[in-house]
């Protein structure tokens, strides 16, 4: 079992924090959501990767225990972008992978109830999902994370305006979203991703996702069982046959061509 990232929860929102401090906390948390969203919403682009590899960001992440390997730190950005695009496809978009989509993880197929539930939540909050480089489902991990980030920004803005009731309402909305959606699948999913990926970028992002989720749930006081469980017990390199024709399960014509 990999060590769960420890994110100190006492650094955010002490009961006696000033309004300005609370606003700052909301915005910092929103940043984390956005950072994580960028890893999952689609193949990471050069700008995102460059920012992530900046000394300041690496140092900040290192403090949380995030340590990338040479496969992330050393290649030229364009080569890294390509490598991660391939890895992204194999993990999340090709047949036999495990899409970061709540409907698939919890309900066994694309566009099941979770997708329509979060769409309705977004609609009520005044959001809609628009395509980026690719179309994404509403219950895709990156979108769900972005949604919470937006709510956190709104919390901060409400506090800025002195609208404490609105900020509390938005906090409740965030809690509800974790209780009904994110909290039900992303910790197990993080376990799974960490074990399956062959690239340190996704390994570390998976660890960060899991650690961040644990911290947020604790901070929010939400207790919900993760239904995903991330059951993988072997490395992907052992998964011969899923898409590998040469090692086909039928064994047809092996060595006879």
């Amino acid at each position: 079992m990999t060590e769960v990232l420890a994110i100190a929860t006492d650094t955010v929102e002490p009961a006696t924090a000033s309004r300005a401090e609370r606003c700052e906390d909301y915005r910092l948390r929103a940043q984390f959501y956005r950072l994580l969203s960028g890893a999952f919403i689609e193949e990471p682009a050069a700008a995102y990767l460059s920012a992530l590899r900046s000394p300041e960001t690496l140092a900040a992440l290192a403090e949380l225990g995030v340590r990338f390997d040479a496969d992330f730190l050393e290649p030229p950005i364009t080569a890294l972008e390509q490598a991660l695009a391939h890895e992204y496809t194999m993990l999340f978009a090709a047949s036999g992978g495990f899409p970061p989509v709540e409907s698939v993880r919890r309900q066994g197929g694309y566009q099941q109830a979770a997708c329509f539930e979060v769409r309705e939540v977004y609609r009520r909050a005044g959001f809609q999902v628009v395509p980026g480089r690719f179309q994404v489902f509403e219950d895709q991990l990156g979108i769900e994370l972005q949604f919470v980030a937006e709510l956190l920004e709104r919390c901060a803005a409400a506090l800025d305006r002195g609208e404490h009731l609105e900020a509390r309402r938005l906090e409740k909305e965030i809690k509800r979203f974790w209780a009904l959606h994110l909290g039900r699948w992303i910790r197990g999913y993080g376990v799974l991703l960490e074990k399956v990926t062959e690239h340190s970028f996704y390994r570390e992002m998976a660890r960060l996702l899991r650690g961040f989720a644990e911290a947020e749930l604790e901070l929010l006081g939400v207790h919900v069982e993760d239904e995903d469980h991330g059951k993988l017990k072997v490395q992907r390199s052992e998964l011969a046959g899923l898409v590998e024709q040469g090692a086909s399960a039928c064994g047809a014509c092996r060595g006879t061509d």
Partner: protein
Amino acid sequence: MLKITRRTFLKASAGTSAAALAAPSMLRAMELELGGRDFSPEVAAERKAIPTGCHVCNIQDGAIAYVENGRVVKLEGNPEHVSTRGRLCAKGNAGMWYSYDPDRILYPLKRVGARGEGKWKRITWDEAIAEVSARLDEVLKGGEPNEIMLKWGRNRTGGVLERFMNTLGSATVLNHTSVCESSKKIGMEPTWGPDIETPDFANSKYILNFGSNILEAAYFHNPYSQRIAEGTVENQAKLVTFDVRLSNTAGRSDEWIPIFPGTDGAVALALGHVILMEDLQDTAFIETWTNVTVAELKEHYKPFTPVWASEISGVPVETIVRIAREFALTKPATTYTYRGPAKHLYGSYNEKACMMLPILTGNIETRGGYCLPRGMGYKQPEPVPPKPKTPSYLAHPDEYPLAGHKVSHLVPFWIAEGKQKIKVLFSYQDNPVYTNPGADAVWGKLYRDEKLIPYYVCLSPFMGEEAQLADLILPDVPYLERWEPESMPNSLWPWLGIRQPVIPPLGEGRETKVYIRDIIHKLDPDGSRGMRQYWEFKDPEEYMRKQFEGIPGLQEAGGLDWLKKHGVWPIYGKLDPRNGKMVDATGREIQPEYGLHKRTLSADDMLGATVDEHGIIHKNGKAIGVQRHGQNYVGFPTHNRLINVRVDEWAKYGFNPMPTFKRIPWHENLKDDEMILTTYKTNVHKQSRTAAVKWLAEIMHSNPAWLNPRTAKKLGVKTGDLVRVESPVGYMVTKAYVTEGIHPKTVAISTSCGHWGYGRLAQLKLREKAGEFGAADDPDLKNVWWDDKGVHPNAIIPVVADPIGGSQGWYDTVVKVTKAGPNDKYGDVQASWDKHMAFYKETMRYAYTGDLHRTMHPEMVAWAGPESVQHKAPSGGH
């Protein structure tokens, strides 16, 4: 005021019962409403009902999708559909799992590793279209458009794929028909015109079924099983089935007659012999509507005695004689055939022999008889691209001039031999790596070979065995997300229908006509190449609207808007909830029109027409009807408007033009330990594309080898034991299932199982280490209780081609079955390209140009040989 005691009440009620029964009842239980509405069990709200056309298999049933909160939650039959009358089969009920399959491909995928290595990169549609267009452009600029090949498996696009290839100018279009039913088609078409029959089972008194599992899997099983049930139950029709295997149809028959594989034609000829020799034929029909006389037939059928057929088929002489008399003397009667007779070396002869029975007995186009198919057409949007200028060898090989539905299963060998060069391959809903003879050993080898297939684009939403070998996968969409026109001759009432999207395409799945349009626009952005003009439409709905414009009756009803609301046109009646039949406004069952060949020509039709000495009516250079007994009839849709018992075109190529039978040479003198391998389908799967559908996989997922107890005893095996099935091209190791329901000289193994592609459920990777990620938390997949995915037999089945119809001889393979050895493992399959190649060369010897053709046709001694026939111009250009 009346004073009613219990005593007076009981006394009175005895006398009032008749009046009570006579009072009209206007209250019915809700469950007697046969479909059309559905409610959420949770909130009781009515679900949105959207009519569409089922396309899990190719019966094309009318369906209704119930959508709740944007999700398809249930599928059922469309009660307004005249053919399927509100019923869907198990496959149709499970269709939504195509859309929601977690292994579905939702984005264009580009290969990044070696071909078949399984490494992909997601790319945008713009990138994908640019790449495909550049490849096509290179070929087109080289001046050899036939180097672009498209092979489809199930094409119900309503002409879109044909338009694409015609736009490109390529004739290299391959289909799946030679592994499906082509020799049935070719057995029928030159004889009476259409490629299929529409028997009136519901009104028949006698149904003679040759090798068709019509109650569960054969063509039109849903509407036909309904009609057969009506015929056998309400009309007391007798159902007799000749089959090597006790299928569910055979099991439901009054008689199942096990028959040696490939000998249906011999039995059919012997039945004809008895009918003719005992003068039980319908002389008036034969003399009026065919191109032969009864005297000619009696002479021709003389050698086909029951004794002769019995020796070949194993069917007792007395059974043949009895069935012949029953069939001839019970009116009305019909036959039905499917792959049993047709999928053999000389399948076309077999089909023709079977078809002769309703012809001999005059059961053609009669109530309860063997009827012409009824279909309806739709249009192609204008302008329509012209056909390609240069023929393709692969599409129409010189050696098979009569095989109008192609011989696509031989294509890998022709490409390997250099008969035609291919630079770009498209496949569409076609998985020959699994479905064709040789499977991976043949098609897998072809698709992996980058010299033979330099660039392969797979148009599919699923990672099938073929898609795994592609260079680029374009994510097409499953049927619940498509617009397509539809019409099938699966009832005696013609109909037009549509498939319409009941949910928007998931992810970046795109409809075929949309991305093809985009490819063409990329190739011809300003229209200067003359291609773009054929692809000017805003969206698929607009394209479809053009297809239904100006159709008399439909136009007035509202055209596409009517179809969007009802799913089908016309609506002939209302479904009676008491019996599930279509009734008219008076409550009577609707009646079809019979005797289509007896429709008379109008005075306008006859204006300028001439009648020849045979009574054939000609006008503008073609036969438009036939004159009989002073009447001008339209006749049958053949070149001479008659039923051609004698097919003169066959004689031109040295084939027997009259009904005949050719025994498969390698089936003669089988050794004691040799058997025939046969394959089959069941009621919950089609060939390859249903193994990943959750509910269906649960019902049927493994395919043991059926062995007769006598055979099993000899081999020393019992149910569950491993057996090795060895053919001349390879072997497989599977489990035995010992049953009386199989001919002792036959081993039967179903298709649809044993996948090595198509996602984790089809491969049962859920039970292996690999399956422990991805969808492992699907509540349905948690319930996967089985650990056996079966073994696929196609790799050990060699190619055979009917020299007339081009069909694969699926049921011609001689195998040895033995108890598995210590080194044999369940699921082992080994096959060899070289051995398959040797069989390909052998089957070409039976083509009309081959050295065995004359040996097999001693009766055609007067034929002057292949050089006497004018060959088609060399095609393909290579």
